[in-house]
């Protein structure tokens, strides 16, 4: 526990680097691509459009009377935040070997920057949600205040996943190939395409142990239905994420001591 506290203090000492490196990640991504910031919007929006077409015309998926595009976008833009963060964050250490082997700084800064840069994209994508909400006249309730709580829980969970994958990637380069596959499988075990109501009641408590399932379900509750999310789901997502983060960070710090030797 003292080791964990020391790591937090050290990270705090280097917060300026975290900030500068995050800005670097964002700038590079936007300078190197033609469409720049539009990518942050295009990715969740195009998938949402495709889903709406498929699941309203070809396969009928019930959305409880909500327009399909709204139903999918509200889940897909937080999901894109997760996948972007995991994809960039898990490669962050391996992509900067020359730094990791030569210069000291808290190693978690690189994966964290990946997550924070994705958070920036998420913010842009949020504005599209606002536009859609006006278009479809979605009635948002006071529960919108909980949005920050959801984002925070998602951050905790995403950071844990990214820390573990980024470190494993240093040890075994195969992780590079495992991540996209894993994300695809994970997508189907999260209520993106279908509403949670389609999951049988008996299995549902176990199904909702997955923090991303609880989160996506809660995003929809807040952003589409204007309802309060179910507190048990949120609480379990929060507790699981915190426990996961503490474990992941402790392990990451232990693993980080040998990064320079292994790379």
């Amino acid at each position, binding site marked *: 526990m003292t080791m964990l506290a020391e790591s937090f203090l050290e990270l705090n000492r*280097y917060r*300026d*680097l975290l*900030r*500068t*490196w995050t800005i*670097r990640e964002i*700038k*590079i991504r936007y*300078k*190197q691509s033609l469409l720049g910031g539009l990518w942050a919007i295009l990715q969740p929006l195009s998938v949402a459009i495709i889903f709406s077409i498929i699941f309203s015309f070809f396969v009928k998926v019930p959305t409880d009377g909500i327009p399909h595009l709204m139903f999918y976008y509200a889940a897909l833009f937080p999901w894109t935040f997760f996948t972007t963060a995991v994809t960039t964050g898990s490669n962050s250490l391996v992509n*900067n070997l*020359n*730094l*990791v*082997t*030569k*210069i*000291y*700084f808290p190693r978690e800064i690189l994966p964290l920057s990946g997550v924070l840069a994705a958070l920036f994209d998420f913010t842009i994508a949020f504005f599209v949600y606002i536009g859609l909400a006006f278009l479809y006249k979605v009635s948002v309730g006071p529960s919108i205040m909980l949005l920050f709580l959801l984002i925070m829980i998602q951050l905790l969970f995403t950071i844990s996943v990214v820390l573990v994958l980024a470190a494993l990637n240093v*040890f*075994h*380069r*195969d*992780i590079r190939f*495992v991540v996209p596959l894993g994300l695809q499988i994970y997508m189907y075990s999260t209520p993106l395409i279908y509403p949670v109501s389609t999951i049988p009641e008996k299995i549902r408590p176990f199904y909702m142990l997955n923090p991303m399932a609880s989160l996506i379900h809660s995003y929809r509750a807040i952003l589409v239905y204007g309802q309060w999310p179910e507190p048990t789901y949120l609480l379990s997502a929060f507790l699981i994420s915190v426990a996961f983060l503490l474990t992941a960070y402790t392990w990451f710090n232990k693993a980080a*001591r*040998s990064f*320079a*030797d*292994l790379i």
Partner: protein
Amino acid sequence: MAVIEFNHVTKTYQLGVRGSLRETLMNALSGLVRRESDHKKLLNALEDVSFEVREGEVLGLIGANGAGKTTTLKILSRVTYPTTGSVSVDGRISALIELGAGFHPDLSGAENIYLNASILGLKRAEIDAKLGEIVAFSGLERFLDTPVKRYSSGMYARLAFSVAAHVDPDVLLVDEVLSVGDAIFQEKCLNRMKEIRDKGKAMVFVSHNMIAVQNICSRVIWLDRGKVRAVGEPEEVISKYLHNQYFGQQNIWDLEEGEELFRYDEGSVVVEAIRILDEAGESFQTIHGGGSVKVEVHYNAKRQLNSPNVQIYLTDKQHNRLMGSDLARSNYKGQRTISKGEGVVSCTFDAVPIRPNVYYFNVDILEENRLIYRQKDIGPVIVRPDQSASRWEDYNLFDVNCHWELNGRTE
């Protein structure tokens, strides 16, 4: 007070460690059956190394490649950790191990200054305060908004060094950074390091540039395959190291078959040994610039040579001929024949005016202007920097005695 303490540090690397996931899984599976680790090769990069560095002290680390110098720096800067032993460093460390760390080609000069400086451990406010100074030092004011990818490599190095030079650490670690860049750049680096030293900061300096080490260090450690071979005064340790590196224990070149030599006839003359002697007539390994050198060629002629000639010349490591002498064209007035049997021909070079470096002697023997024997790269001969540290002349190609005059009229 010791700023750096390095206590009995051993660093062991496993060679050929974990690669792919498959290997690890296979190892884990086979580990269930039998205890593994019998096929792992271990390498001690450092073995029981101890030293301390006090405030205002500059410790030089010298040694051949793979001696453990870089590992020592990496342990000090916490990039890697010792296998056994302990390390304590008091204060902020800054490591000039790689110039321009974190630079991204698509970002502008100014953006890269912020990036690089924060990686070197500076806070944003500190960078804000130093930005003007850094930019002025680099001389790149007009290109600050230009992406670094459009910079020439010289501009790139200047920007990188300007940032590095303005980090104000308590402990500075410098790796072979000086080997990049031109002479002016290197001198700028050295001057900046001297400034930091004179502020009373502790420094550890790794270099193959013995002049730089001698100029700047107060103490030197010679590392040899992970162990401390010698510690002490720079002059003394550097000499020991250079002796060992170039000579082993011998200082006479007994020439045997198989060495690189050219015989242009049927071995009518064989050179059995070549000795290089200093002013006192002793075999030597290193001399100071400006000293005299005597080259003795011990030959064995199988027959009498008709109008023989001997040429002895000095080359640098790149085989550039620097100076030399020719027996036939010299003012030598004595015996000019080489008859059958053994003998010694020698040439003394007075006050060799060359800068500290490593050189080689070469010997040619001619008969009637035809080359009949050649021995290349005899040596090396090491010319050491003068004892008085930091001689300006050491940076010149030649070290010649000069006579100055200054005449001015007061009006």
